[in-house]
């Protein structure tokens, strides 16, 4: 009951922010004048619309509880894996191992997470899938670019299934024996990572100077520092929904935010290598699921394990 109320409070807060942004966006569109469009304003409004849908969808799943969250993230994994494997190196010899990745390994990973089989879900992909899939590919007898095919498939599984599954795995951390609290921990995680990213983007655009990897990404030191600080502040403000104290919540938020930003940088390198700007076009204005999730993907396993250590 308390969890539901807290989720609704947070939802109300986010709705207030989105409503304010929507009013600003519509006002800007009004200024452009009827019959004409400004591409920047249009992009902003399209993105905002996607945000509304994502926030509402996420709130509904959070209210429905653990099973719904598990299914939501399993679907996110599926969509992300589909985007990633579309661009990886593969040959027909990999067909069966790729089918196994989609239809066996992905569902099993979420079953293991769902039943809290920690000893299994933390090693299933890095050990068993890692060893099994190359065997399946090798049995077809095609050695062309074998190592790169196998490595890229394994990366796809680690990123899209293993890492993403660590978000719903937070449900299993059960700090102080309260299982309702853990849904809020996911809400906390998602909010601080997203706010850190948004502030990093805006601050970087306004006063960012020193780029951290000029050939890859427009990320700047100033932008990142602002983003991490904002994430930490949000974390401190939201500490009441977490099992952490104020200081620890801020530190966890900063940790999630900084790993997320570097994850975003790694994805920029992958996209540049594969010659893609966006992974897909499924989320209007934002690109694909992977474009939306890249920060959370890197942050999730670290956040999960540090949470486990802290609740020791």
């Amino acid at each position: 009951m308390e969890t539901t109320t807290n989720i609704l409070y947070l939802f109300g807060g986010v709705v207030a922010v989105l409503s304010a942004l929507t009013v600003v966006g519509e006002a800007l569109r009004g200024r452009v004048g009827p019959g004409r469009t400004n591409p920047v304003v249009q992009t902003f409004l399209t993105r905002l619309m996607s945000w509304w849908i994502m926030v509402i969808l996420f709130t509904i799943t959070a209210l429905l509880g653990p099973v719904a969250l598990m299914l939501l993230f399993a679907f996110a994994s599926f969509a992300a894996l589909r985007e990633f494997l579309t661009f990886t190196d593969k040959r027909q010899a990999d067909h069966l191992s790729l089918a196994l990745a989609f239809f066996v390994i992905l569902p099993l990973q979420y079953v293991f997470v769902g039943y809290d089989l920690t000893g299994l879900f933390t090693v299933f992909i890095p050990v068993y899938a890692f060893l099994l899939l190359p065997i399946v590919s090798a049995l077809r007898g095609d050695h062309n670019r074998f190592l790169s095919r196998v490595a890229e498939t394994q990366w796809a599984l680690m990123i899209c299934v293993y890492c993403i599954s660590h978000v719903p795995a937070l449900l299993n951390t059960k700090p102080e024996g309260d299982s309702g609290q853990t849904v809020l921990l996911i809400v906390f995680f998602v909010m601080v990572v997203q706010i850190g990213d948004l502030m990093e983007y805006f601050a970087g655009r306004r006063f960012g100077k020193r780029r951290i990897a000029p050939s890859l990404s427009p990320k700047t030191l100033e932008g990142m520092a602002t983003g991490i600080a904002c994430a930490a502040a949000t974390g401190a403000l939201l500490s009441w929904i977490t099992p952490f104290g104020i200081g620890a919540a801020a530190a966890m938020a900063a940790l999630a935010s900084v790993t997320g930003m570097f994850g975003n940088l790694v994805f920029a390198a992958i996209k540049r290598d594969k010659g893609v700007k966006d992974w897909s076009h499924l989320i209007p204005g934002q690109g694909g699921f992977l474009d939306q999730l890249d920060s959370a993907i890197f942050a999730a396993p670290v956040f999960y394990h540090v949470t486990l250590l802290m609740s020791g």
Partner: protein
Amino acid sequence: MTRKTPLYRWIAARFTGHLLAFTARFITAVRAEWRGIEPVDKQRVYFANHVSNADMPMIWTVLPHHMRAKTRPVAAADYWLKNKLRAFVGPEVFNCVLVDRRPDARTDDPMAAIRDALNEGSSLIIFPEGNRNMTDDPLLPFRAGLYNMGKSHPHVDLVPTWVANLTTIMPKGEVIPLPLICTVTFGAPLHVGENEDKDVFLERAADALVALAPERDL
């Protein structure tokens, strides 16, 4: 078409159509890229590469409803009339123009049905390679049909349409399709030049089609 079939069959056909489009979208997240044309109501012949039986449903799925209703895939009669289910899906769900591929068995001119469809204002989806391409080359040599359509209906836009990635989604000999992202790219429309030779035109059309293919398909 709608007047000849009973209402319940018509409803079943529309429902099946939506279900197929939804399935195609769910599995391959199929998406249209309107590179050379706009998604507007205009009479066109979409000519596409052919690597699997899923090509035609993919193109059909990405067409917006108002275009889909007026677009008829040209398909082989021997395939779509083989059993009752196919005879329902081909002619009624996809509203196919059926053409007999077997020269020895057919009675009337195979182009006649196509000409009729063009005359009544329908757009068409055709696969000018004739058969599924099982080779490593991006395209097989085109048959003459595309040229003849361009000659007899010069006002109709001939639109090159590349279906990307289907060879990896469902390679020949595999049973399980991979849910990878499929893109259908529509290029700039072509027309047969006034004195253009058949082979010259067909080569130009093939080049325009291959030019739409992403690197990983070649």
